[in-house]
């Protein structure tokens, strides 16, 4: 079986069916983004590496215990676990010159422990998804266009630049402002993305 060709969910199912290699493929697939996320919070590569390991130990434990609820957002779930691991690290170390707990993303990230999800949480989550989809309509046209091309159509920035007849730098800039504006609207509406 070519594991690398499988989707995240297929890999999860394969792992839960007893194929241990499937989890390694998942970890490698998302290593860069999870590592960068942790590093952006702790600003220390060695600490980030340790937290990365702890994050996936926790991921495997939750999966093995059958506590993972499939919502189609595996990587977002892993990032929330990583986020909680970083918060735990800050609590344990209380180090100076690093992002404080109060600054550590409680605005748009769910500060509740991932394992506490209930049926009610998933109903709320569906409502939030609906709200976020609507917020995209409030973006300026040029930003909304890039968002739709990236998330709906899955285009690369090179393709987006070609289709909108702008430079790649301009497309990237529009994406950045779109995300910043979306975050602002999400914060104003006090939505928690989970």
């Amino acid at each position, binding site marked *: 079986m070519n594991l690398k060709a499988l989707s995240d969910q297929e890999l999860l199912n394969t792992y839960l069916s007893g194929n241990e290699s499937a989890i390694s493929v998942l970890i490698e697939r*998302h290593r860069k983004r999870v590592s960068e996320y942790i590093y*952006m919070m702790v600003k220390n590569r060695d600490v980030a590496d340790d937290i990365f390991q702890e994050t996936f130990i926790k991921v495997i434990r939750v999966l093995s215990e059958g506590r993972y609820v499939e919502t189609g*957002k595996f990587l977002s779930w892993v990032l929330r676990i990583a986020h909680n691991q970083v918060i735990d690290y800050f609590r344990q170390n209380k180090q100076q010159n690093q992002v404080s707990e109060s600054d550590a993303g409680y605005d748009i990230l769910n500060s509740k422990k991932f394992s506490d999800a209930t049926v009610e949480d998933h109903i709320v989550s569906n409502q939030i998804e609906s709200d976020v989809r609507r917020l995209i309509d409030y973006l300026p046209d040029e930003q909304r266009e890039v968002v739709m091309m990236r*998330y709906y159509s899955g285009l690369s*920035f090179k393709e987006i630049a070609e289709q909108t007849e702008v430079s790649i730098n301009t497309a990237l800039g529009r994406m950045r402002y779109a995300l910043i504006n979306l*975050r602002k609207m999400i914060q104003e509406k006090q939505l928690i993305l989970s």
Partner: protein
Amino acid sequence: MEEFDNDALAKADPDEEDMFLSRVIQGDYELLYLDTYLRELFGKRA
């Protein structure tokens, strides 16, 4: 709507991912989470 490849994120050109991280995310982990969330949100069947 056709289902978007939910794992395109990981299969994407590594140069493009680096460019995205340096030019769009610029060290802001909340934006990275938001991008990941949106990728997965719209990767689901409507």
